[in-house]
Every structure is written in structure tokens, then in C-alpha cells.
């Protein structure tokens, strides 16, 4: 479960409201797609819920743990895949995963099991003992995905996870996201790939200029707006907002 309550984040001394009074709750066992145009506030929201940024006001709960009051326990609840790979490029892939496993107190047996399973799934076994900086963009992305799952978090947060992945890996990731939520855990991801969101998500939220302008099951939202695709819905909603502006 993820809960935002009146979360606001401003930049440039309050001049820009990147996230504006965001309130929403996402239940466990769901894949939630977070959509929005460039600069709408998606990444800022993800950074707020992972503790990277501090909200100016509001509260965030992850599995009923208050992120601001109890950040360490809250951070144990999630695994995060950021949108860019600014990691420890001189470590080998194996060293990076071991490092994460140590930080999340993952036992020897579990870490071996998880590493073996995910390395095989994402076909990284051959490169895992090489320095990360020798990896391609897609390989780095796969490594981040594996790293975010090493402790089997209750909440899996991904920022634009499909970027740079080959079709097979993209398929594996989508399958992984579905399997993950079916085991009662929550998947929260941002994306620009609306087709994927439409097919994969139990719920989507559309953010525009920091405000949540729509939220619900994709089918329900499309039916309410009398459109046949999520893309049409997205363009309608963000277009209307533009007109209002």
C-alpha cells in the first residue's frame, strides 16, 4: 500500500509547483502506472516517495510506515529503479548486487537464489563479473532491475523501466511486474509507453503540471471519456488541461 496525503513539492523558491497537493492511495496487489507529459511531476513524485526529495508539505506512507517519521523502515519496504544509471560504474555487476544485498540484510541463501534467478531471467550471467561501466545501457537497466528485487520488497517502484531494454527483456519485465503484484505486492511505475500501461496496469494515474488529473482502471477511464485507447484519453485530458491553462 502506498498513500500520499496533500504532498506538495516546489522548486525555485516556490515559483514552480512540481507536485501540487497530491493525495492518492494505491492498494497492494496492483500494478499502478503513473503517466504524464514531460515535466509533469512524475519523476519528482517518485523521488518524493523514495526519500530522494523532501516534500514541502504532506505525508507519504509506504505499507503504513510514515516515510518522513520513520525513513529507514519505510525504505526497507521498496526497491527502486531510477530512470538514469548513475551508479558505481567501477564495481562489477556482482559486487554491486552483493553490496545491495548487504545493505538490505539479505541472507546468504536468499541472495544466491535471487541473483541466480534474475540473472538467468535477464540473461546477465555472462557479464556479471565485469565492471558496470563496460555494460550497455540496457544491461545497466537490467542490473538495476535485479538490484531492486534482491530483497524482494513489498513495493516495487520503477521510473521509465522499459527504456533501453530489448524486446525479450521488456517481456520478462512486464511478466515480472504482473507476477509481483499477484503475490500481493505493489508495483508503481512511470512510463510514456501508453500501450504497455493500458495492457499491464490495474490502475493508472495521470499527472499534469503537478496535479493528479485522472485516476482509475484504464478501461473505466476510457469508458468514461468515451475513447478507445489510453493514448486518446491521455491526449484528451492533457490537451484539455492545456486549453484551461
Amino acid at each position: 500500500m502506498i498513500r500520499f496525503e496533500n504532498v506538495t513539492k516546489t522548486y525555485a523558491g516556490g515559483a514552480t509547483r512540481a507536485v501540487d497537493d497530491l493525495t492518492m492511495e494505491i492498494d497492494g496487489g496492483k500494478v499502478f502506472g503513473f503517466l504524464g507529459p514531460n515535466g509533469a511531476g512524475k519523476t519528482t513524485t517518485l523521488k518524493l516517495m523514495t526519500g530522494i526529495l523532501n516534500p514541502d508539505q504532506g505525508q507519504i506512507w509506504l505499507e503504513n510506515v510514515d516515510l518522513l517519521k520513520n525513513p529507514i523502515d519505510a525504505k526497507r519496504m521498496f526497491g527502486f529503479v531510477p530512470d538514469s544509471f548513475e551508479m558505481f560504474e567501477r564495481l562489477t555487476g556482482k559486487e554491486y548486487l552483493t553490496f545491495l544485498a548487504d545493505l538490505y540484510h539479505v541472507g546468504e541463501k536468499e541472495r544466491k537464489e535471487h541473483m541466480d534467478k534474475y540473472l538467468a531471467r535477464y540473461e546477465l550471467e555472462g557479464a556479471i563479473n565485469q565492471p558496470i561501466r563496460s555494460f550497455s545501457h540496457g544491461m545497466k537497466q537490467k542490473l538495476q532491475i535485479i538490484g531492486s528485487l534482491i530483497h524482494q520488497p513489498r513495493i516495487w517502484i520503477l521510473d521509465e523501466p522499459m527504456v533501453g531494454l530489448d524486446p525479450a527483456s521488456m517481456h520478462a519485465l512486464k511478466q515480472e511486474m504482473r507476477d509481483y503484484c499477484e503475490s500481493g505486492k505493489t508495483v508503481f511505475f512511470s512510463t510514456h509507453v501508453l500501450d504497455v500501461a493500458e495492457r499491464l496496469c490495474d490502475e493508472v494515474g495521470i499527472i499534469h503540471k503537478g496535479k493528479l488529473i485522472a485516476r482509475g482502471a484504464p478501461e473505466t477511464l476510457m469508458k468514461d471519456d468515451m475513447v478507445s485507447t489510453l493514448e486518446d484519453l491521455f491526449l484528451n485530458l492533457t490537451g484539455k488541461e492545456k486549453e484551461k491553462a
Partner: protein
Amino acid sequence: MIPYLKVLIRQRLAAWNPVSFQSAKKSKNRSIVSFALIMLSMVMLYAMLVALEYFMFGAFQQIGEPETMLALAGILCTLMTVITSFFYVLSELFFSKDVTFVSALPLSSREILTAKLLRIWLGEAGIALLICLPVTVLYGVSQAMGLLYYLKALLLIPFIPMVPIAVITLLSFVLIRASALWKRREALTVVMSMLFLVVYLWGEMQFTMSSQKDDISAAVLQLVLKQKPLLDMMAGLYPPIRWFSDALTQSGHMATANWLGFAALAVAALTAVVLLVGGTYQHLAIKQNETLTRLNATARRSVDRHGMRTPFMALYRREIREIFLVPTYTMNCLASAVIFPIIAVITMMSAGKAGSELAMLPDLLKLVPGVLITAIATGVFALTSNLNLAVATSISREGVRHEFFRTLPVKPQTQLAAKLMMGLTLNLLSGIPMAIVLMFVLPAIRAELVIGFLCSLLFSTATSTASLMIDVAHPKFGWKNETEAIKQNGMATIAMFGSMAFLVVCGAAFYGLHALGLHYALTLLAVCAAALGLDVLLLRRLTGKAAETYILQEVQI
């Protein structure tokens, strides 16, 4: 080729634009002030160089050879180009980010190399002008030279760096050729850099230790006289430097011939290098870039280890590994572990020479109270620890990865403790070689050295903790390369000088307490107890307020 050269020059000039110092956090005015301060410090450094040249010129005038100073300036420029441009040429030619991009442009390999070398030369020519102009003016004024002399000098000085650049380029090709296929390329860079540092330091100490007089003019004169054969030897080894000074000091056809000879040689050297290796440049640069990709194709044997560590140990290991894996960090954090033992060895070697004042050192030490020697040793070891920038830049070095650390379910106290422990470990690595060397060369005071070393840990813990706290409060996250994170980090420099000032204060307190009648042993005990108290206070502050500040720092670039 010209458009590419223009872009290269424009990029270089842009780095000097005050607006480029601006970040999201800094206002335009603050950026300009920062720029002005940097410029001021550079002007001060330059003033020091001008003063040195002024004194040296005076010394050469005293011995009736002012023109030798022109040759010396030329030699200095040549050597400076060799020293400063070695890594610069290497990184510009083979490690720059545009290697693959440029490969896709309709430019020949020789054109790319020519553009890059011309850009490097323009930068070095500017430095050469800065170094040589004060001497040129001093000579011109003292000899009442005409306008033609200044014009000739202005047009000839920029040619000086061409030959050293050509030689360095050839060397870099050989090095890359040899190391491109080698996996441990960075280790090679570190080893070579350290060797280079050792040779440079040895040379400089040999040069400067020859004078011990207090009067600066007399010292410069003595230095000049003692090193005159060395200068003659250098000029002998590199005859064109004679053409350079003769071109400026003589007149008539001989001067013209020397001028043309020097300029032609410089241009010919650079052209020859472009013709000789230009054709293979692009191939080699791309091959160098591919080294990492090739590593993937030959996966190493998997080490099937899944041993657990505590988060503290995991973070500590990562911090230590980073220092050893990034050559820039290794060079800046561990150089003192190499430099100080070498200084100690060279000093002691000089002490062994007959007639040297240092030869009396072992006998002199017998007359000094043991506790005083312990106190001096404490200061020396604490000072060597302060010169590594590892802990003072440990937050800044996170860069944008600070966002990753903010997501970790690890207390900020633990994260800072791991950084501090890394800093203290490096302090030990810097101090231990020095301690071993000193114990070996001064066996009579081994006990004092050991106690002094242990006492110094109290002081280095305080300075390291304080440096870490400064970095917590003012991290530099917005760096683009590792040099910016560690070497061009103003707050780290302030922390280093602050630590030195702290040691001076401790030394003054030691002296003051003894002057008040306290016994040396009690004085040392009192100062160490104060340092211990400060350690406790600073550590409490680090795990309290500083830890809160650390985890709330946002990356704003």
C-alpha cells in the same frame, strides 16, 4: 578540420566563462564572485612566479649572464609542458568523450589529430607566454632593447611547447599501444603517475636542497651558481634552447637565422608526429574505447561467493574500493603515503653526506627531551594525515548518486560512520609508511615515533571528522568528472587548510603551556586530552545534527 578546431577552442574558452560557474543553487552574482576569487588566487600565484623570476634574473645579472635567464625560462617552459601536458595529452587524445562521435564525422584521422594537437598547443602557448614574458621584459628593460626585440619574443615564445608536445604525443601513442589490450589500464595509469611523481619530487628536492641561506637574493645566487652546470647540461641536451636565447639577444642575420631555425624545428616536430602517427590515431583511439566492451566478450570466471556483511561494512568497503579503483582519487588520497616517505628518505640520504648540517641530526636528537620528540612526531604524523582529501570529499564524491544513498534503508549515522572510517583508514595508510621509514632511519627514537604516531590519531580523528562535517554542509554534487569532485573542490581545500591551522594552534598550545612552567609530558598529555575531548564532541555532532543534514541534502545541479 577548421570547424572541429573552432569547436574545440570554443569549448575550452567556455570553461572560463564566469556564467559556467553558475549552478541552480548559486545566483549569477555569487558565480561571478566565485570566479573573481579563483582569478584572484591565480593572479597571486602568478605574482609569486614573477617575484621568483625577478630574484633569479637579479642573480644572473650579478654573475654577468642575464641572457642565461632567457634560456632558463625557455628550459622551464619546456619542462613545464612535459610535466603538465603528459596526462593532458593522453586524456585529450585517447580518453576524451568525443572519440566515438568524431569517428563518425567526415574527417581523416590526421585531421582529427592535428586539430586536437593545435588546441593543446594553443593552451600551452598561452602558459609559455605567461612564464616567459616577465623574464623577457626584465631582460629588455635591463639591456634597453628596442621594439623589435619584444615583437620577436612575442612571436617566438609560443613555439616553445611544440617540441615537448610532439614528444609527449609519441610517448602517449606508445603507452596506449602497450596498454590498450591490458585490462588493468587504470592500475597502469596510477603506477605510472606515482613513478612520475617520485622522479619529479626527487629532481625538485635535489635542485632546491642545495641552498640553505636565509637571505633570498643570496640563496637564489647560490642556487644559480650551484646549478649552473645543470643548466648548461640541459642546454647541451636540448641545443635549440640556445637558438631561442640567441634569436632574442643577438641582432642581424644570425638572430634571424636562429629565430627561423627555432620556429621551423618546432613546427617540423609537430608536423612529423602528425605525419608519422596521424594515420593510426583514430584506429588506436577507437580500440582504446573498445577495451571495456571487449572485456564483456571474455567473461571472467565467476566467483561464487555470497558472504554477508553488515551495512556498515558494505558501505565502508565500497568507500575504500572507490578510492583504489578511481585513479584520480587514488592519486589525490594516497599521494601523501608515497611523498612523505620519499621526502624522509631523501632528507636522510642528504643527512648521511659529509658536511651536511643534517648529518648532526642523530646526535642532536640525543640532546632533545624524548617527550618533545614525541610531540614533534605527533605533529608530523598528524600533518601527513591531513593532506589526503578522501574524507573531506566523501560526500561530494557521491555526486548525483547521493540520490541512491538517500533511498537506502541505512541510518545516515551509519553511512557517515562508514565514510569517516574510510578516512581514518586512509590516514593510517598515509602515516604508517612515513612512520616505518622514520623508525628505520632514526632507530634511536623508535619509541617516541610509535607513541607520537598513536597520539597523532587523536588529532587526525578530529580534523577528519570536522572535514567530513564541512563536506556534509557544503557538498559539491554537480561535478562532471572526478577531478572536479576532489581536486577542484573549494570546501575540501578550506577543510585542509583549516586542519593545518588547527594543528598550528595545538602546537602553540603545547608551547604556551610549557612556557607557563608545565612539564613537557604533562603538556603533551593535556593537549592530547583536549584533542580526545574534541573528538568526542565532533563525533557526537557528526552522528547528530550532521547526519540529519546529510540525509536531507538534495542534489541540485
